[in-house]
């Protein structure tokens, strides 16, 4: 027979579980179950439209994906984008954030507003805006090159040229996100105690020494967070690509000639254009693996700095 105390404990626990239940149901329905189900699907052959039942095929989807030229192309493009995007955002974001915090910088408030504007513009609108600017016939960029700089030899069909399309998307993505990164660095710099900087000045530290020995080491947490955000942004690159290259249908997304095809776009095409849920799921898990790998590198680099 339960004691009075035990019954009360059970009742209290039931209350607790009931309070947690809505959140748990939400998490289970929209996160835990889809993640687990996708994992299961990645080992199955299942065309969402034409197969009535999934068939377990072991690691075949993973093997097939790794042998598919499309996946290799998407992986290369994603890594190429990441290698350009992360350093660009770090360097530019830090520089802008640092300049804004300088005491004698007069345009601090207006700069913060200007930096915020790209963040509040929807991604698709930014993409369209840039698409208009790089239009080969009436775009601002070609007009500027041909009419203002008088260098018609530099005029290009930017988005239809495999050499430039991904770079244009890179510019759009940097433009969209640089403000947020700069503000992160700005708040990180402002969080450094002024007494540390004053002490360094009294000790006769040069501006270079202050930057290298005081500011940067104190920003390691900011670097870590910005690192995580930029990795996720670059590996999950999707909206800009689909808007700028696939506005009129999924078939054109990732063009020209797959030069802007990223892992996320390839995964989406496999799962929701070709309805190959097994292949799409396997691609999704491989993409997650790459993200975790990059997180590991990010953690390792920022940890080394700490040492």
């Amino acid at each position, binding site marked *: 027979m339960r004691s009075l105390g035990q019954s009360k404990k059970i009742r209290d626990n039931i209350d607790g579980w009931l309070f947690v239940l*809505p959140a748990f149901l939400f998490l289970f329905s929209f996160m835990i179950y889809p993640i687990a189900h996708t994992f299961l699907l990645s080992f199955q052959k299942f065309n969402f439209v034409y197969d009535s039942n999934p068939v377990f095929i072991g690691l075949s989807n993973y093997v097939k994906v790794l042998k598919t030229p499309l996946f290799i192309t998407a992986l290369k493009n994603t890594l190429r984008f990441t290698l350009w995007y992360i350093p660009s955002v770090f360097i530019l974001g830090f520089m802008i954030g640092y300049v804004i915090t300088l005491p004698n910088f007069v345009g601090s408030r207006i700069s913060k507003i200007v930096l915020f504007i790209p963040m509040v513009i929807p991604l698709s609108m930014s993409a369209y805006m840039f698409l208009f600017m790089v239009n*080969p016939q009436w775009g601002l960029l070609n007009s500027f090159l041909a009419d203002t700089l008088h260098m018609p030899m530099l005029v290009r069909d930017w988005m239809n040229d495999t050499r430039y399309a991904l770079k244009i998307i890179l510019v759009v993505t940097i433009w969209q996100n640089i403000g947020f990164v700069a503000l992160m660095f700005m708040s990180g710099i402002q969080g450094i105690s002024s007494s540390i900087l004053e002490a360094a000045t009294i000790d006769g530290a040069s501006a270079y020494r202050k930057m290298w020995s005081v500011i940067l080491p104190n920003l390691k947490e900011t670097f870590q967070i910005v690192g995580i955000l930029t990795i996720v942004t670059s590996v999950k690159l999707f909206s800009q690509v689909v808007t700028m290259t696939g506005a009129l*249908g999924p078939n054109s997304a990732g063009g*020209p*000639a797959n030069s802007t095809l990223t892992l996320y776009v390839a995964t989406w095409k496999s799962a929701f*254009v070709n309805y190959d849920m097994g292949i799409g799921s396997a691609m999704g898990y491989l993409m997650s693996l790459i993200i975790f790998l990059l997180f590991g590198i990010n953690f390792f680099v920022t940890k080394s700095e700490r040492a």
Partner: protein
Amino acid sequence: MKKTTLILLLVSFIFVPYVMASGGQEETATVSDWTKDPITMKIEGSGWILKKFPIQEAADRFMQDHPNVTIEVSSNQDDTLNSYMLNWAVGDADVDLAFGGAASQVAKLAAKNLLMPWNDFYSGDFDAKNFLTHSVETAKKGGDYFAIPFMEEAMSLQVNRGLMAEAGLVNSDGTPMYPANLDEMADFAGKMTKGSGEVKDIYGFSWNLTNFGDQQMMCAVNALGGKVYNDDGSPNLEAPEYLDIFNFIAKVNLEGWATKGTISDTNAGRSGLKAGTVAMIFEAASRAIEAKATLGDDAMMIPFPGMEKNGTFIFAHYAYVPRTSKVQEAVKAFMREQVFTADFAAPAAEQYGKLPSYIPLYSGLSSDFEQIKKWMALPGTIGDMSWVEGSKLNALFYELEQLVATGGITPEEAVERLATEGGSYNLSIVE
């Protein structure tokens, strides 16, 4: 007491949304007599279809004839039809009649058994023999016609006769010359291209690199005398003509005679034709009709090399009704009374070149359509097919065409990949 109330509230909070959500799956009874009961019919169409076909006017006329019927017309924002598949699979009766989608696209809805069969519609004046046979039969699965064709496209070359004349490519009577083979067509493209540098003032040619993927390729193979389909209806991806076509694409693009604009804007070719910056495009013949708005009679259709002998390639767009619709009989009446009529079909044909699927409507069309009707009637003319993994093949065509057009791979490599990768897809007919 307070605790009990709190628990009840929490339980309601958790379960009420689930109960409400599951309400959407409930099957509701079909309207017993649509001619008397007040009913609402929801019609959706792709944006371009609503623009080019007078669907709202047809709805207004139908409502006038049947005062108990209210029709709501709206645009379908999802051309992939995925939202239909998801909504209709859980029993949502959000649409009663949908316009737009090739047979290969609509087939996926049929594969999920989501569509009303049209078998009993094909009788009397609307007997199947009064429609373009291929389009009717392409939308058939397991003995049921899952969609009904209301609009046809046929492929051909469309040219700006004025630009051809400037390049000396017209006959003594002013009519445009027809290219006899792919080399001559490339030569035409080169002669009509104007300007220097990477971006030209006028491009001689445009091959759509993001739309009409399989239709263009297969039309070209067929026109050149190749065998497009195997006996089981699967595509013959080893036809030798593919190499000639890839060679042509490589030549005109790498020489700078063709615009690559269709890579990022599928309408770039037709827009260029209308604007007078592209001299010749290979797309659906409707482009020449719509270009008359800006080019006048200079906008003309001419045959792709070999098309006069071997025929063209036709494909339809379809209307279809979800099984969830409660007003299926009213929809059929709407189709009979309003859609397969000259009032509905003629404006779309004369202004936008959209051809009717219902043969009796051809008698009222203008002489602009004489040529394309002639090519469509040739015994060699073929139509599209619905394959299980047809979307993969379509995507592969785009990929290979774009790679060849931008110099990423050679035509020989493209042909090799088409045979090996395309050959690995399940390209059996949807049955």
